[in-house]
């Protein structure tokens, strides 16, 4: 397992990083935590000419909740989010995903932004950010673009991010009262990619669901936005029947194939089960 030859630069400011990206174009590749990229290099699935290491960029690993906005720096590590007091007390969908990704070694190094840009449909953060209706901020030299999380991910390992862009921040509206969320994931063992994952965020107002976000992991060529399921939920009072109906709406958009994790029927069954369980969990938290 020896990677092909590559050059390596380690900018120490965002400006330097953007310069490096502008210079190397599609022959450059950003490395953050490296938990997907390094294996791909060693397997020779990827052979960029230059790695641009962004781990030294200052101020990109913070989390804040100010002025009605929740912000995540792109370099937040999975483990950091999984253990963050704000997440474990309020944004459970983030805390739960953060502790279910891969294994402790990966969680210590892997980054939120890196995972989103890698866009593995079996990875977890995309679904979480879809559920939170988050915005992904992409910068290049002299310009900034923003995308909704669902829009950002285009397909297997492909996103809206251009070769000369870097994801700097992910943000969403901060939750006010009545917010509850959950992330459920089936993995065959610790470190496994998801067989199925459900990211759910609900806001309850006066006993009815005022807003709903549902993102699905490993249910298609990208993290799926279960819009129909959200429509089923919004405006209704939480109930087992409602959750079952929303689950069916989510199952309807699943596009899965048979592999060693199971048949399509099985995977859809897990999705159905997790939707019901995840919604119940999120609703309970919203009511707490």
């Amino acid at each position, binding site marked *: 397992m020896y990677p092909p030859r590559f050059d390596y630069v380690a900018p120490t400011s965002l400006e330097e990083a953007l310069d490096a990206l502008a210079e190397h174009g599609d022959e450059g590749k950003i490395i953050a935590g490296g938990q997907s990229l390094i294996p791909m290099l060693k397997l020779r699935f990827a052979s960029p000419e230059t790695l641009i290491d962004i781990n030294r960029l200052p101020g990109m690993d913070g989390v804040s909740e100010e002025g009605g906005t929740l912000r995540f720096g792109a370099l937040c590590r999975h483990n950091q989010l999984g253990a963050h007091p704000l997440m474990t007390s309020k944004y459970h969908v983030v805390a739960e995903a953060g502790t279910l990704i891969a*294994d402790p070694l990966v969680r210590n190094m892997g980054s939120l932004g890196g995972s989103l840009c890698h866009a593995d449909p079996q990875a977890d953060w995309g679904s979480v950010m879809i559920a939170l209706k988050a915005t992904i901020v992409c910068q290049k030299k002299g310009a900034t673009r923003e995308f909704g999380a669902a829009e950002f991910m285009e397909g297997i390992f492909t996103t809206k991010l251009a070769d000369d862009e870097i994801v700097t921040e992910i943000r969403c509206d901060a939750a006010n009262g009545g917010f509850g969320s959950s992330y459920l994931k*089936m993995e*065959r*063992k610790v470190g496994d990619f998801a067989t199925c994952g459900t990211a759910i965020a609900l806001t309850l107002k006066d006993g009815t669901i005022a807003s709903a976000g549902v993102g699905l992991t490993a249910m298609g060529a990208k993290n799926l936005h279960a819009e129909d399921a959200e429509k089923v939920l919004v405006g209704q009072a939480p109930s087992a029947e409602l959750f079952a109906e929303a689950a069916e709406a989510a199952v309807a958009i699943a596009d899965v194939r048979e592999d*060693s994790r*199971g048949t399509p029927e*099985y*995977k859809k069954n897990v999705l159905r089960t997790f939707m019901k369980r995840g919604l119940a969990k999120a609703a309970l938290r919203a009511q707490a």
Partner: protein
Amino acid sequence: MEPSEQKAVRGVGHSVRRVEDDRFIVGRGNYLDDVKLPRMLHMAIVRSPLAHATIESIDISEAMALEGVVAVVTGKDLEAHKLAWMPTLSGDTQAVLATDKVRFQGQEVAAVIAESPYVAADAAELVEIEYEPLDIFVDPYKALENTETIIRSDKEGQADNVAYEWEAGDKAKTDQLFAEADHVVKLHTHYPRSHPAPLETCGCVADVNGATGKATIYLTSQAPHAHRTLFALVAGLPEQNIRVISPDVGGGFGNKVPIYPGYVVATAASLLLDAPVKWVESRSENLMSTGFARDYHMDGELALTSDGTITAMRCHITSDHGAFFADAQPTKFRAGLVHICTGSYDMQAAHITAKGAYTNKAPGGVAYRCSFRVTEASYIIERLVQNAAYELGMSPVEIRRKNFIKKEQFPYTSCTGFIYDSGDYDASLDKALEMLGYDEIMAERDAARAEGRLMGVGIATFTEVVGAGNSKEYDIAGLKMFDSAELRVHPTGKAILKLGVQTQGQGHETTFAQIVANELGIPPEDIAVGHGDTDNTPYGLGTYASRSTPTGGAATAVIARKLRDKAKKIAAHLLEASEGDLEWDSNKFVVKGTDKSVSIQDCAFAAYTNPPDGEEPGLEGVHYYDPPNMTYPFGAYAVVVEVDPETGEWEVKRMVAVDDCGVRINPMVVDGQIHGGLTEGYAMASMQYIHYDDDGNCVGGNFIDYLIPTAVETPKFELGETVTPSPHHPIGAKGVGESATVGSPAAYVNAVLDALQPLGVKNLEMPVTSGRVWEAIQAAKAAAE
């Protein structure tokens, strides 16, 4: 000068801390990849992406042009030296580098030797190979039916894809008993292809010195002496010039018993280039090309009387060996010791047949933590017995008790010809049920069922056959399966023990010292244990099949006793007493009825400074031990599971394992071996397998697809023991390294099946994935409607 202080002797039965662990824990072990020699070159292997294809052309020019590349070797190059093919340890042949065609995905086609591993990997990508695809067979049944596409077209006279046929037992008597049976229980099941996946992959550093003619081969080897002899025979090198060194080995589990093409190519390259050549596999190379295990399709049948007495067993095996029959089996045993499949049960006859298939899959069939197919054997009988219980309306405990070989029947000759040395199966099962609280658990299970929950209790009571040989019946590639120990006691009473067996994590450096301590009274910390270097250890067949303690351990005990006998002569001389007046008291000789004594250390010192007249000086010797019989460890395992009916996931709530491996040398090491085996058994039962798509692509060639349980998934184990010594082993020990891998898979599977029994689910195939459980539940529900 007098020998120094007497220390407490901690021999057999003491949980001495493993002396080898210190160096591993602080990262000071010396594994194969740690071996770095001056002028050393690096080798990378070019492998076939296709499962079956003729090789039309190989163009090495681009690879050779890369700076830092020293040589590119192809099968044609090896052919010139008669090294394109090599023998396997099962009497077949295997391509070293493919010359005519490739027969599995990942097969070795060429090798690049370069100045760095990076350059070697770069150049490997530049070797251009043109292939012409052929029909692919991944299903052994289809391969066996086919006589048009001959996978082993290289073998003269091979007109089909049959690797071997073999049988054991008494067909006529078995047929008669089946004809007379009140009830016949049948089970078709597949023990899936798995892989030992040791943490350290395979590799070698071949250092053939052109000036001295000496070939020093550092090798990830479980059997360094046997490998040296085979190198001598295959490569035609004089054996005295070959030194195989197996350094610290990071797990073997059977994977490091065979000789692999990479070893042969690296050695040939070192010889031709006159420089050391290192080759270390990647994880995927290990999983995709080196010795896999199992892949047995089994049709088992039990004949029973109406009261649940088992009268006979039939089993037919279709074994899938991939492209080359590259098992490592004793010569006379094509299907290993699978005819131990009558297990712990007293029956009148059995008939076992096996047919091996060549397919377009990786070669092998090694015994993964298993004494030659005993794992498969134990699985089929323990599954059949549980099915028989259900079909006859008996409890799985009752049917076992009814059919157990009784304590007073030992030594017991099985109907397939094994002589079980000792056993007490009822005691072992009693202990497991007592630890489990069986009646309470069954009540809990029934209450859970009443609530609609899926709770199950599974049992497996296994009997193993380990410790090959005797040498009359057992040999590998002609080499008889004895083993050896050489013990040298130094003047200061410290000792060095050298073994023909080789540790890969079993703890020999600790436990074998304890055997010497037990017999000779020298504390284990005063005994260095050497192994793995053929220039410095006596000959032996190596460590696998749980054979180290039964063979090498016995040799150690015997040589220690011989030295004690000599020490007694010295003691008599020192004490000015007759030998007949001396008594041995753990570490000293005492003149009977007095307080006069000399320690073993005193005797050792005298052996070099004051030997008795006419006695040969020194205190050392070697013993080659040819075991009179195998040993037969056994045990009773019980597993409690609960199944999530919505997702099919199952969780082990309890896992009780009672092992009887005879006398335990180091109880802590034994527990460690059992923990490891139970974990690997759980892996096979729940998640671990390699399979192939119709194009012969390997699924399971990395740790994303080939699952190894972590501490999180691994159940909590509750261990118990009974001790039934082996009557023929010098210290009564039986070997324990593999018991838990052999016995536990059936216990896990039986537990899940028990949970699903109210739904009418009859069979589940390993690995019992949550998807398979859910599908089985759905199918049973559909059938019930």
